[in-house]
């Protein structure tokens, strides 16, 4: 236990800023999860592994001498087609089945990806160095890497683009219609199969962007996928489906929580505290709803 946080206000400022910038990234991943959950009623356990895969794409560009920031454009393109491929191979067989089946099937995909990445890229913790330097704030007491600012800016940019796309484009309208009522959309001539594939692809592309940004700002490792899945799941159940400001807010809140848990409990309990927080949130909501004799749906 370390209560330095409360004695030195600058550490608090540092943790809050780090947490918010990290949380924006979480919110981007969570938005993808909310999208596929809302549209096709699937909980994708492999979400985090898609993120890590996107990170490795950026890392590979870095290894071959291309600036990793270009990964932000390359990764989503590759991940989109990968997402559509996964949809065609596996997901379209579990879409209209029990949710537990989809959880198990994506768990299988997650294990598969984790291991393939382990073979392809090795089990080392890696990061793609962007050489963006750092910004010092408050009399050099708070260190802010520019790469984190860059990643937050790009995430917000992608989120805004996506929201506009969902509102204005034809496909976006079809996706929203399918989310509201798949059967009615089908009757009115929407090719739901295509919409599902596109949704899964868009989700994978978002994961690719987030992964590329994570490989620039933080570190990636083949086995680090599951915590990202749990984080995005947590953000979605706190914010609710289709509540974008809520997703952004709870993402940032989670980021700040994690930074403080890191300072107070120690780094070895960081992931553990995320998982415990998930359990606590679910239990809290269960008790809140049970007063009205309802349950989480």
């Amino acid at each position: 236990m370390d209560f330095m946080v409360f004695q030195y206000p600058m550490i608090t400022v540092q943790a809050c800023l780090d947490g918010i910038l990290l949380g924006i990234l979480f919110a981007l991943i969570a938005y993808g999860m909310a999208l596929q959950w809302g549209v096709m009623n699937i909980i994708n356990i492999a979400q985090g592994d898609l993120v890590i895969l996107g990170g490795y794409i950026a890392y590979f560009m870095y290894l071959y001498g291309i600036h990793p920031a270009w990964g932000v454009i390359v990764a989503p393109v590759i991940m989109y087609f990968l997402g559509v491929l996964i949809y065609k191979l596996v997901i379209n067989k579990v879409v209209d089945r029990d949710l537990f089946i989809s959880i198990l099937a994506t768990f299988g995909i997650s294990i598969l990806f984790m291991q393939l990445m382990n073979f392809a890229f090795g089990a080392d913790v890696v990061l793609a160095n962007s050489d963006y330097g750092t910004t010092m704030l408050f009399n050099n007491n708070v260190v802010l890497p520019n790469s984190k600012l860059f990643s937050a800016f790009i995430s917000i940019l992608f989120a805004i683009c996506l929201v506009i796309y969902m509102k204005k484009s034809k496909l976006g309208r079809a996706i929203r219609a399918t989310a509201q009522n798949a059967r009615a959309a089908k009757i009115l001539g929407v090719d739901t199969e295509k919409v599902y594939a596109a949704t899964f692809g868009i989700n994978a592309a978002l994961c690719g962007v987030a992964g590329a940004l994570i490989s620039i700002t933080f570190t990636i490792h083949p086995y680090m996928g599951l915590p990202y899945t749990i984080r995005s799941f947590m953000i979605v159940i706190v914010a609710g489906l289709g509540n974008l400001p809520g997703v952004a807010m709870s993402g940032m809140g989670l980021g700040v929580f994690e930074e403080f848990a890191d300072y107070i409990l120690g780094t070895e309990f960081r992931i553990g505290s995320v998982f415990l927080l998930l359990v606590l949130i679910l239990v809290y909501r269960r008790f809140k709803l049970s007063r009205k004799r309802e349950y989480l749906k």
Partner: protein
Amino acid sequence: MNKNNLILYSGILIFGLAAPFLFPAFKVQLSILCVLIVLATTWNIQGGEMGYNSFGNILFYGLGMYLCASVQVGMFFPLAEWTESGGEKTFVHTPAQFFQGMAVGLVVAAIVPTIIAGLIGYSILGLRGHYFAICTLGLGVAAGEISGGIEIIGAGQGFTTPPFPDVGSLEARGEFFYFLSFFTLILTFIAVRSIYSTRFKLILNAIRDNEDKAEAMGIETMKYKIIGWMISAFFCGLAGGIMGGLVGYIDSTDVAFDGREMGVFMVLMAILGGKGTLWGPIIGATIFHIFKEGFWTFFLGWQYVALGVLIVVIVIYFPEGIMGWLREKYPERFGEVVDEKDRKAQVEL
């Protein structure tokens, strides 16, 4: 129990008792198989019969593993020193101490997870469907991460369980653990079989089929859900304690709270055999274990890739499992009355 069943059970019993002498090279594999069957069968109590698909039974398994080993060491030697310095080199259990410690350890390993399941049951089992699944997944992983940070049970570097004492015979260790796990298996089977012949099983099935209606019929569903989970936890803890001694080394995320392996295995075995049947998990675990050992030997290094593909294939193409498939094919054997006209009509359609 009719005559056929009697012959079947005594055949299995005799085979089980003779197996370590017939196949002395496979003793460890057979013990692991017994543990796997116990895990799959008890997962089936709340996963298959009650409809609460849990990824978190690994929590009780890992707890049992740590508790059994800690009690076995802590009864005779200081636990902190043991884990800090690789104590098995400085402290040696005499045979009497080892077996005494193991007995007490297994009792603790079974009781404590049961109590914990009872305590957290009220909060966790109020969640339904996929929320329950994800919440228990979180519980299992959180337990692994947290136990990996606790110094007294070895933290990240792991915990060596007491080595088997020298009792004169080299075969003794394998035989001891085989019979221990085999008797646990028999105990589990008898317990589960007697549970499945009572009203309790019908209540569990009612909860699975429609919980709201079951509640409306006047069943206190929460009480039965907690009891069902506690029964699972009891046997999971016991299995974990045995497995800890068998493996000889406990690591927080790779052996004890191994949600990625054992936690998914138990779900998979039950689904492969057929959820919600007595024999399904047993058949599923046996086939899965043979399959897995084949993979682990021939595709060394690629085993997890194979496992991932296996999960996807089983879940997509075999969601009803082997028993479900048999039931569809030979409904008469399962006591279902089939109308010949009905069947013909279906074929014509």
